[in-house]
């Protein structure tokens, strides 16, 4: 204590377990402890929610106070001396856990949360004592339908009220409440309300036990069997950071990953369900005129069609970029079209806007994850959309079209005209939309199967990691484009998506401004060993 840190009106300095820490004024003790690497156990405290201090699990000793204080509620003060590992506060944790477990059912084998359950974890870390109870447990309803996505098991609930606060504070709708008293207290929907807000599954994430379960995930897969890979939600332009939980080449759920600048701890329900698209109507083999073909045949055919069209009139050849694909895919396509083929008729596809889904929380009207990235990569902020493409098609200005992505909102008439073009090459992961009408359809890997980057609405370049291999013969789109270039005599020379990224960072103005780095490849980690949840 020889050196007293500079006192400042904005910060306070306190001592936690003998270690000094300086934090901004108003910081809670639990957060200050985290800064020096001390994790205080807690159920009801969540860094993204208000503090209620109902679970009493985070009690710590603060010198000068007559009783143990909840560290989530205690605000740091100058000169405060906190003990988290003394006998008194260490003794309080097993006592609180014993109370919590009095009426907890022996449900672990049938509980969806088992393996990522905070209660399991805290009991194992702090208590580990045998039960002393010899009276029957209080019975409560086991299957309560709270809303379209959520089911409640009231027996498992430990009444931390995190879910109530998520509805109130994140979604801004009061839909959950407590009812009854004492050991009959339980969670219920507010009178006349249903748990149906757009962020309702966040209640499942924050639930420290298996009381709230998602209908989409429950009883499908044990949590500890899952592998986790970090990625970005492709549901809209917000680009929420997520973890893909997958096993056996299949995604089982998406959960939010903390990012202070984008989504904090949350994501919307709609975004969580985007993974279903990964298994519906996927294109698994290249096709020429609807018939399956080998890759070299399909690529060769596509290259010949495009070359013939370019030779006839370069101005009549259009290229459609995809805001559903990564920056790398689009960049490779820009290079192929502009530099190798000399084509400049560019459009951007993607899904049309859905204004009614926009809110001020996370959801954006633009349900394409990478529109801003496409504009930056193409270098044209006013790039024409599907509307203009439809007009051009109707006026017969276009003779050939290379389309990235199957989402292209064309009217029926332009769509028919597109189908009649002499060259319509589509690189897409699904056989829907324009992909069904392609002369040559090339199957690409979808977002969970590729490594790459996407730019969200704020201009943040975020990284997608590959969770598993693409189905069938599908390849990443940048690789298809590279092969297409090779077949038409224009070597792009990419061997790895990282090369695309590095070249792109050097050339695209908007990207070089940020400290955009590729980072190391990550390996999927088994969830039970990742320590990230529960």
């Amino acid at each position, binding site marked *: 204590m020889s050196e007293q840190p500079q006192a400042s009106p904005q910060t306070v300095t306190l001592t936690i377990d003998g270690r000094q820490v300086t934090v901004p004024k108003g910081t809670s003790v639990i957060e200050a402890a985290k800064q020096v690497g001390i994790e205080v156990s807690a159920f009801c405290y969540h860094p993204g929610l208000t503090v209620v201090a109902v679970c009493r699990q985070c009690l710590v000793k603060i010198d000068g106070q007559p009783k143990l204080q909840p560290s989530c509620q205690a605000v740091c003060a100058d000169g405060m001396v906190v003990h988290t590992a003394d006998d008194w506060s260490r003794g309080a944790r097993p006592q609180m856990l014993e109370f919590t477990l009095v009426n907890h059912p022996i449900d672990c084998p049938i509980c969806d949360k088992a393996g990522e359950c905070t209660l399991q974890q805290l009991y194992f870390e702090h208590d580990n004592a045998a039960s002393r109870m010899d009276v029957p447990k209080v019975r409560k309803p086991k299957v309560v339908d709270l809303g379209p996505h959520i089911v409640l098991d009231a027996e498992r609930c430990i009444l931390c009220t995190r879910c109530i606060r998520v509805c109130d504070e994140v979604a801004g709708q009061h839909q959950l409440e407590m009812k009854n008293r004492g050991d009959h207290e339980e969670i219920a929907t507010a009178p006349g309300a249903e748990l149906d807000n757009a962020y309702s599954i966040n209640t499942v994430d924050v639930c420290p036990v298996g009381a709230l379960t998602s209908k989409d995930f429950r009883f499908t897969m044990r949590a500890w069997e899952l592998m986790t890979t970090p990625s970005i939600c492709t549901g809209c332009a917000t680009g929420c950071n997520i973890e893909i939980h997958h096993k056996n080449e299949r995604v089982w759920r998406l959960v939010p*990953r903390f990012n202070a600048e984008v989504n904090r701890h949350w994501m919307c329900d709609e975004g969580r369900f985007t993974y279903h698209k990964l298994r519906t109507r996927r294109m698994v083999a290249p096709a020429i005129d609807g018939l399956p073909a080998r890759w070299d045949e399909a690529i060769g055919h596509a290259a010949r069609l495009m070359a013939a069209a370019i030779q006839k009139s370069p101005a009549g050849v259009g290229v459609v970029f995809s805001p559903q694909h990564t920056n790398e895919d689009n960049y490779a396509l820009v290079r192929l079209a502009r530099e190798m083929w000399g084509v400049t008729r560019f459009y951007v596809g993607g899904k049309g806007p859905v204004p009614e889904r926009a809110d001020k929380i996370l959801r954006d009207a633009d349900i394409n994850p990478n529109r801003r990235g496409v504009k930056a990569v193409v270098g044209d902020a006013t790039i024409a959309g599907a509307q203009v493409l439809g007009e051009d098609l109707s006026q017969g200005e276009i003779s050939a079209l290379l389309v990235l992505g199957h989402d292209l909102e064309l009217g029926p008439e332009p769509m028919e005209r597109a189908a009649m073009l002499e060259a319509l090459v589509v690189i897409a992961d699904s056989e829907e939309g324009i992909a069904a009408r392609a002369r040559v359809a090339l199957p690409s890997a979808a977002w969970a199967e590729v490594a790459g980057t996407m730019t969200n609405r704020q201009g943040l370049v975020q990284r997608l990691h590959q969770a598993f291999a693409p189905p069938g013969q599908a390849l990443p789109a940048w690789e298809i484009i590279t092969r297409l270039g090779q077949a038409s005599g224009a070597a792009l020379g990419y061997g790895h998506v990282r090369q695309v990224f590095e070249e792109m960072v050097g050339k695209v103005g908007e990207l070089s401004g940020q400290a955009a780095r590729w980072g190391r490849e990550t390996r999927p980690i088994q969830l039970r060993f990742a*320590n990230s949840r529960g």
Partner: protein
Amino acid sequence: MAGAVLEALRARFGGAILETTSAYGDDVAVVKRESLHEVAAFLRDDPAMAMSYPCYCTCVDYLGMELLTISPTTPLAVPAIPSSLPEEAPRYAMVYELRSIKHRHRIRIKVPLTEGDLKVQTLSDLWPAFNWLERETFDMYGVAFEGHPDLRRIFMYDEFIGHPLRKDYPKERRQPLVRREFSDE
């Protein structure tokens, strides 16, 4: 006794010894790749060291290990996986364990290796025991041992592609040599 070997190594090789630790009673010296052979020869031949007994050698692949060094009590939804990690950090480390039967002391030598430059000088000229062990390490991790007399696969077959103990080799990716044809039964 425990630190004496490390002390002697530090005194003699100075900068070539990047780090020394003694945890769980195991003395560990992290040695620069260039000095490995020299350090090993010294340990074998110096009468005060007399580490004539080669215990084992292997390699550790640290790919992704830094991701997991988060406290187990981290609450929900804190980033488990940072999106970017240092790329230049050494991914592999060779591990050699030597022992002196005479003096009853031992040492573990670790040599960090980066992904792009995965080679190290062989020690099989000092101890013939390392011949097969280095072949095993080559087979499993793809570490190239310069000067090894017979560097080829030892457990896997020659047709096998890749190095299976690397962390990015999937556990169940088989490369069959032969399969039965069911049509003729």
